[in-house]
């Protein structure tokens, strides 16, 4: 993989942010609202329930981590959509740029922008609502890795969907994190789900993260097996998403969709 084309994709994102600071707003505005909302809900629940459960850590921590996963997906999809909106496909794909270089550039751009969101979330959640991740210890790094990886795989699949079904399908991809959240057991233990939903949950790496987070906050250990499952599933899902994108790209080249791709020509 060559570095210059990857740098080009990153530089383009930087130019867009610099050229229109309004684009930076979604990076922290919505996560800020989420943190404030769930911060007060957690504070209220802490005040009306028996001591023993720390809702700030359970709810606010879960919101923060799940939001991060969604931000990575949205960052990647938005970076891809920039090329759709500016009708840049022909210039881009008729160049020496390779698909892995393009996707790597999009992934790094989305991770960089979601890191800004994470920093804003922590600035709000830690001092204002007393959120602490100390109880998670070194597991936090594993959780972040899994959630970043899952967000990346969702972003690649969402981009492939837009490439396959046309620009109008962007409205199908934004709700994906919301659709998956009930299965990922973000706010409740897996055991409350019916059997079929649990089966789906075991295929989604975030469910291991949130189960692990609750276990650690309750003083229970987070076993090695679920950690390995989460990491393996994340790696598999990124590989599967990459395969899916390449297949969709090749089909678009074969059918001529790529050559005539624009908001006007694809329904």
């Amino acid at each position: 993989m060559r570095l210059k084309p990857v740098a080009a994709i990153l530089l383009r994102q930087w130019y867009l942010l610099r050229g229109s600071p309004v684009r930076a707003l979604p990076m922290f505005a919505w996560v800020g609202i989420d943190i404030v909302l769930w911060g007060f809900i957690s504070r209220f629940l802490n005040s009306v329930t028996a001591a023993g459960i720390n809702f700030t850590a359970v709810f606010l921590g879960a919101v923060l981590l799940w939001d991060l996963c969604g931000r990575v997906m949205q960052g990647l999809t938005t970076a891809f959509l920039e090329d759709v909106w500016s009708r840049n496909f022909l210039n881009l794909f008729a160049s020496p740029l390779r698909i892995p270089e393009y996707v790597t550039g999009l992934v790094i751009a989305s991770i960089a922008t979601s890191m800004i969101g994470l920093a804003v979330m922590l600035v709000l959640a830690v001092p204002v609502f007393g959120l602490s991740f100390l109880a998670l210890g070194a597991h936090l790094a594993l959780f972040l890795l899994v959630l970043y990886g899952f967000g990346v795989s969702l972003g690649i699949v969402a981009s492939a969907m837009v490439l396959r079904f046309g620009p109008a399908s962007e409205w199908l991809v934004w709700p994906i994190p919301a659709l998956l959240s009930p299965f990922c057991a973000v706010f409740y233990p897996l055991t409350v789900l019916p059997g079929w939903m649990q089966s789906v949950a075991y295929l989604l790496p975030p469910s291991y993260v949130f189960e692990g987070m609750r276990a650690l906050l309750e003083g229970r250990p987070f076993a090695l097996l679920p950690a390995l499952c989460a990491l393996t599933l994340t790696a598999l899902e990124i590989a599967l998403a990459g395969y899916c994108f390449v297949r969709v790209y090749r089909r678009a080249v074969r059918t001529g969709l790529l050559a005539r791709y624009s908001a006007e020509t694809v329904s």
Partner: protein
Amino acid sequence: MNARNHYSSDSGAPAALRVRALRKNYGELQAVDGVSFEVGPGEIVGLLGPNGAGKTTIINTVLAVLAPSSGSIRIGNVDVARQRSLALARTNFAAVYASLPGNLTVAQNLRFFGLIYGVRSLSRRIEELLSQFTLQALRDTKCGVLSSGELTRVALAKALLNRPRLLLLDEPTASLDPAAARDTRAAIRALARDTGCGVLWTSHNMYEVEEVCDRVLFLSHGRILLAGDPRALPAAHGARNLEELFIQLAREPLAHPAEQLA
């Protein structure tokens, strides 16, 4: 493959572009039907034909954004299907329907594409091109607010960033005023002459084609009907000029290309 549907330059040097038995089908529709031709180094070849003749399909297959149903395409000695990235690093293009991102400035667009094409001494190259296409005053202007003529100049600057060995130009002067169009034609001719870059040029302006192209290929229904020197072809086929010959061919495509070639 129809052997008569095959044209090459007279030069003995290796071709900048070599297309062999190219076919592209969309189901029953045959957009390109076994076309073979070459563009020699430093040669400007005009690809002519009515709308829907297959010109853009050929350009898209050369640029690897459209996979041919069969046939082969080589840029220099590199097979596009096998070494897409290497082949495209030696190629570039400008087309009226492929404008550069409007939310980036002229200089940002040139830097972005310069990095993608792996251009060495990129800053210096950008300055050269800004100067060549009189774009210095527009360097910090977003492409989205440029006039169509200015956009064409930026697209041409982008197309020359990597000093291509093969340049594909799809109606490059369509949006330019006569003076700018003349300057552009002169710049492309000089480029082909001085650097040995092969150029495949599509245009509906027959005066321009006659002035610029060393050779033309007339396409109709995905096949090459005629090929030759644009200055000699009209007389050889009983037409007063290239435009008349174009209209004649576009209105009455021959039942079989070989008849026209005899």
